[in-house]
Structures are given as structure tokens and as C-alpha cells.
């Protein structure tokens, strides 16, 4: 089933023509890998797909409905992980998650426990302010948030950056189970993704 489709996206940032007629389609259970040199517009494309950035031209479809102007349906089912984590350093992992996920769907404390343990953050670490966690651990909290939001589509910008080996394995496991449950994803990364060939779609953006 066709989930996300974009047709002929154009975007300018200042004088540079960042997106030049980009089109893509993502089916259920598929993962689209965005590659391309820095500045080719990978981040901009992701931000357009999640409705943060309005394209100058082009259309977006979610479940075959035109959502270029009315992004509600798409945004309610999408989880976006960009360069900014969206977390507060003064708050603990649990407080951050309870806030960001709680706004979308009710999260009980067991949901929080399960999500944080799944990313290898257990016991006292869950309650310490994020400031005291390492960059890798904070990245895992972000992965926990994406997973806990139970969104149909994941839009991830360099999710594997500053993750150690176990962290990367953890990410591949989370992505695989998400795709298996009928979700889909658009991931901007150069590392290989452990996704079966049938489920992987590639899109190369030129500079």
C-alpha cells in the first residue's frame, strides 16, 4: 500500500536551488535511503516530507490523499529525528519522553520503562538529567522517542551518527521491527542499512 508519495518537489534556499524536481514513493514495509554529498538537500527533503518546510513547488501525498496544504494526517503518523534532539538537558530521559510522546498518545510509565530499556537505558540512568549522559546515550534516548511514538513513518536524518557498535545494531533492530510491523521509513545516511533488498529503495540527490 502506497504510504508517502512526493511529486516534483522544488525548493530554493537563498540563491541555491536545493531540491530540483525531486519525486519519491514509499510503500508499506519499505525503507528509502537518501544519499548524496553534503548540501545536496537531504535534510531539506526530510524537513519538507514532515511538513516543517514548505516546498516552493510540488505535491505531497499521504495514503493517496493530497496533503500538501493540510499536513495534519501525515504529521500525526510521522516521527522526525533531525539534527536537533528536541530534548531538554535539565530534564531526565523519562521526563523528556513523557512530554514529547505524551503530547501524541497516552504513555504509561511501563511504556516509558519498556522504551528506555529497549535502547539500553535502565535504572538510575533514566532519571538523571540528560546533561549527565554521553552524546551516544542521548542519541539512544532520541531513538527511544521515535520508537515510543508508534508512528507509521520514520523520517530520520543521520540517525547512526555518534552511535557506538551496539548502538548501531540496536538501531538496525528497531528499524527492522518497525518495517516488519507495517511501518515505513526515509533515512538519510551513508552507512549501509541492514534492510532486505526487497524492502530497500535508494534515492541519490545530486549536489
Amino acid at each position, binding site marked *: 500500500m502506497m504510504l508517502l508519495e512526493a511529486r516534483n518537489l522544488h525548493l530554493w534556499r537563498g540563491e541555491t536551488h536545493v531540491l530540483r524536481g525531486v519525486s519519491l514513493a514509499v510503500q508499506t514495509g519499505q525503507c528509502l535511503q537518501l544519499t548524496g554529498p553534503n548540501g545536496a538537500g537531504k535534510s531539506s527533503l526530510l524537513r519538507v516530507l514532515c*511538513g516543517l518546510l514548505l516546498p516552493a513547488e510540488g505535491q505531497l501525498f499521504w495514503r493517496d490523499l493530497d496533503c500538501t496544504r493540510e499536513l495534519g*494526517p501525515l504529521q500525526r503518523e510521522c516521527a522526525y529525528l533531525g539534527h*536537533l*534532539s*528536541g530534548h*531538554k538537558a535539565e530534564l531526565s530521559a523519562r521526563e523528556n519522553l513523557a512530554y514529547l510522546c505524551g*503530547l*501524541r*498518545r497516552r504513555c504509561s510509565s511501563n511504556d516509558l520503562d519498556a522504551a528506555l530499556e529497549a535502547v539500553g537505558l535502565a535504572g538510575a540512568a533514566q532519571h538523571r538529567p540528560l546533561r549527565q549522559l554521553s552524546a551516544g546515550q542521548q542519541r539512544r534516548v532520541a531513538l527511544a522517542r521515535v520508537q515510543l511514538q508508534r508512528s507509521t513513518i520514520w523520517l530520520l536524518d543521520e540517525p547512526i551518527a555518534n552511535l557506538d557498535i551496539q548502538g548501531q545494531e540496536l538501531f538496525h533492530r528497531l528499524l527492522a521491527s518497525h518495517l516488519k510491523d507495517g511501518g515505513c521509513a526515509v533515512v538519510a545516511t551513508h552507512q549501509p542499512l541492514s534492510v532486505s533488498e526487497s524492502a530497500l529503495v535508494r534515492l541519490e540527490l545530486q549536489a
Partner: protein
Amino acid sequence: MSGTPSLFEMARLQMVRDLRLALRRGGEWLQPLVFFLVITTLFPLTFDSQLSRLRDVAPAALWVSALLSSLLALELLFRDDALDGTLEQLAVSGTPLSWVLLAKTAVHWLLTGLPLVLMAPVVAGALGAPYEAIPGLLLPLALGSITLSLIGAIGAALTLGLRRGGVLLGLLTLPLTVPVMIFGAGASVRIIAGQSAAGPLYLLAAVAVLALALAPLAIAAAVRINVE
């Protein structure tokens, strides 16, 4: 979708989180209140320490100082959340942005507006207002501070992400606060003079209701544009 939280749960989540953040950041939220005291003490120093004469300038001192202190605190209202990506997540989450940002502005009002309203009568007494008039001053200041927070929040959202937003925030919002200042100070003058302030109070309440209804829409639209 039994899972989606009700509006009140969202508001509670947002307010609890913001209050917890403000209290964890130490006395940062106290600064505008001290600023308010500093400004009001300038009036006797620069005008006249004679209480009977100071009474004439007391309403102006109260309202101008309340406005400036409220604006001071507003500049940071959205800045931190913009820098660390929280606004981004809110804009992407599909939750009603104007409602969540209204809750955020309500927290700002609780931390800045309300304390100002509670401190102002005491300050008014120091500025020569007769003691029996002091309780009466609470109502206009409460109504006025709600509108000041909302209009200031529109300014803060519009100047989000600008290098020197502070001055521009003042320039954008001050003309918009003129009705509140006129009706608010008008009511305070009559209260201090012991007359009935029904007229200006009703107008002040009308402006507050208008701001409560329309401001969140402008705030959400401005944040969506500036979070690009």
C-alpha cells in the same frame, strides 16, 4: 484513537514540564520581578518623593513597569525551545500548536504576570496610593497582564530566530499594547481616586478575551513559519 490525550492532558503536560524547567533553572524566572521593583523605585527618585504628589504618577509607574518587565521575560519564551528542537517536534507532532503554545504562554503568565499582579498593589502603596484603594488595583492588573503576556508572546514568536530580536520585540509589541495601557491605567487612576472603574474594566476584559481568542492563532502561525 483512545490513545490521543485530551486538550487538558496536553496543557497539563506542557505546563508541568515548563514549570519544572523554570524551577530547575534557579532564580531565572525571578529576574523580571526584581526588574519590576527596580523600575518602580526609579519613579520616586526621578519624580518626587512626596507621597501625595507621587500618587498622580503611580498608575503610570505601575503599568509601564509591568509592561517592560513582562516584555523582558518574553524574549526567552520560545528561544530555548527553538534552539534545542522542541518547537520543531511540536510543529511536526500534529497536535494543536496554538493550544500547546497557549499553555506555554500561560506558564509565562504564572511565573511573571501573576507575581507582578500580586506585587503591584504593595508597590502602589509605596507610590502613594491610598491603602483602601490597593485591593481594587488587583483586577485591572490581572486582566491587563493576561493581554500583555499574549501580545508579547506574538512578538516573541514573530522575532524568533532573529539575532537582535529584543529591541524589535519591543518595537513590534508596544503599539499593540496601547489599548491595554490606556484602559488599565485609566481604571487604576479611578480606583486610586476612589471612583468606580466599571467602564475601563469592562473594556479591559473585552480586550483580554479578544487576545485570548485570537493571539494563539497568530503565535502558532508565527512559530510554524519561524521553525522552518
